[in-house]
């Protein structure tokens, strides 16, 4: 089967620093992939290159067979790729509801039709759904800048997903969130993202979270992919253990509300 996303020899240098070196990755439709690696290993650069925030020095990015190398974010987004951010990128003075409505309007309405009223019934309905799906209904009238970190993360992802989404890239969805909130947060995300079989790639430092949610793991070290494959195998890989995780996973954690 043709991969949904493919990178061919993607390399990115910032001066002398090599943030990505000959990265070859293929992701099939519907996969849930975790990306691991130490800070500075090139994980976020990888996401930035795919979504066009930085241009690769060399190499190509293909999405659904189309070459999208070097397209600016706004054009990449229109292809059905979306992403969340390590630091949530919100409109801090607008309310949660307005944030979502801006996202929904801009993602679903061409530039030429933006003159239509902002408060459009059709979009308000979809915002309502998103509020429900991501469990952020209680915060709807609060300015986004004042939200707790976990809610910011959810809103960030919810905004990214207001358009048509075939592939979502989540950049550390649980960073900055208290340990006991990580699993509930991921559950919410996976449930809302995975419902329509959206292909998901997420960057994560917490190996328990990775082990629990990823079907497949790609490990980055120093800009290079050092392991790529089925989750439990990668996490037992010698290089991964010595360079990234430091230990072989032992206990498997079953979150209490996983299937509720």
């Amino acid at each position: 089967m043709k991969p949904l996303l493919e990178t061919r020899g993607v390399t990115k240098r910032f001066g002398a620093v090599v943030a990505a070196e000959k990265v070859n990755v293929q992701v099939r439709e519907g996969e849930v992939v975790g990306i691991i690696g130490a800070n500075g290993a090139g994980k976020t650069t990888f996401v930035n290159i795919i979504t066009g925030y930085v241009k690769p020095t060399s190499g190509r990015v293909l999405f659904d067979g189309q070459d999208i190398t070097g397209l600016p974010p706004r054009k990449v987004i229109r292809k059905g790729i979306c992403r969340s951010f390590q630091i949530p990128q919100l409109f801090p003075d607008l309310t949660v509801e307005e944030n979502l409505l801006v996202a929904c309007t801009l993602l679903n309405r061409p530039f030429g039709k933006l003159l239509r009223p902002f408060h459009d019934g059709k979009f308000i309905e979809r915002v309502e759904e998103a509020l429900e799906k991501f469990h952020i209904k209680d915060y709807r009238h609060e300015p986004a800048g004042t939200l707790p970190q976990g809610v910011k993360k959810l809103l960030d992802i919810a905004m990214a997903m207001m358009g048509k989404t075939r592939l979502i890239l989540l950049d550390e969805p649980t960073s900055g969130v208290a340990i006991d909130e990580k699993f509930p947060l991921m559950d919410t995300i996976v449930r809302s993202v995975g419902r329509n079989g959206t292909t998901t790639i997420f960057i994560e430092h917490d190996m328990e979270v990775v082990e629990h949610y990823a079907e497949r793991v790609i490990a980055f070290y120093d800009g290079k992919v050092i392991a790529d494959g089925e989750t439990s195998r990668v996490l037992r890989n010698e290089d991964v253990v010595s360079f990234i995780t430091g230990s072989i996973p032992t206990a498997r954690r079953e979150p209490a509300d996983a299937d509720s």
Partner: protein
Amino acid sequence: MRRKDRTYPILVGLFLLFSGAVFFTPRWFSFLLTVAVARSLVVLGVVLLMRAGLVSFGQGFFYCIGGYVAGFSSNAFGVTDAGAVVILAALGAVVAGAIVGLLLCNYRDIFFAMLTLALSMILYSVIVKNPALGGSDGFNVPPPTILGISPEAVDPRVSLPLFTFAVAFLLYALAHRYFLSGFGYAGLALRMNEIRLEYLSLSARALVFLKYILAGVLASVGGALIAYISGHVDPELAYWTTSGEFVFIALLGGTGHVLAPLAGGVVFEVIRSYAFDLAPSLWQMVLGVILLLMIIFMPEGLWSLTERFLERKRDEAAP
């Protein structure tokens, strides 16, 4: 919960009120009001940009273009109808804005502010050094016909204010509609987070380009109206002090509502009359001090007072 929007009826009411003032108040007062309203159109453009986080220190560029379009239309090309000239002034702003907008749309923050300032100063120096454009003295603009009504038939001191109010309030209504559109909110979004905006598939540059032109159209129309009201144009229209005053009024009124520039404009004229009486040589200092105080203590402008008032009233109504 959104408050019920009564802006359109308020605009109609204000239009009627202002038009009545032309007939029932002294001439100097209705003149002052007309000037304030025409200039507040320029400020409306500044506010439109400010809502998107952009400060233009060079709206005098368009203000001057509008004024000179009006001047040359009647003096050189025999186009003497104010209605036609207002449209010409708007078109002139679109053309000029589209050209310089291509460079400006790459810039934000202080770069945008200073480059717009530089632009208006270029226009100023070009006119000053060019006798063909009237040089530093400028030239007079005769009273126009207004939608076919000649100045002989109806006193222009009556017809011109009415025309100004009609144009201004129409543009106010359109601007309000714009603020409530997708573009309006995209502007707020641009101010707060441009990266996210790009990730919502909107080109920030295209948005800045568009807003710059729209603000230019408002300034240009304001300039054309002022040319008729004062009967004279000179390069001072493009001078930095003129642009600076527009920024001042915008900050004074605030950016929260389409009526804020109007409120700011009227208050500004009042301050100016008093300051000129009390301390004519300290006018700029008065402006500077008020500006400082506004930035430090009331960065949302005077309009925020009405918001606070309305909120308190609502809280009282729903205990």
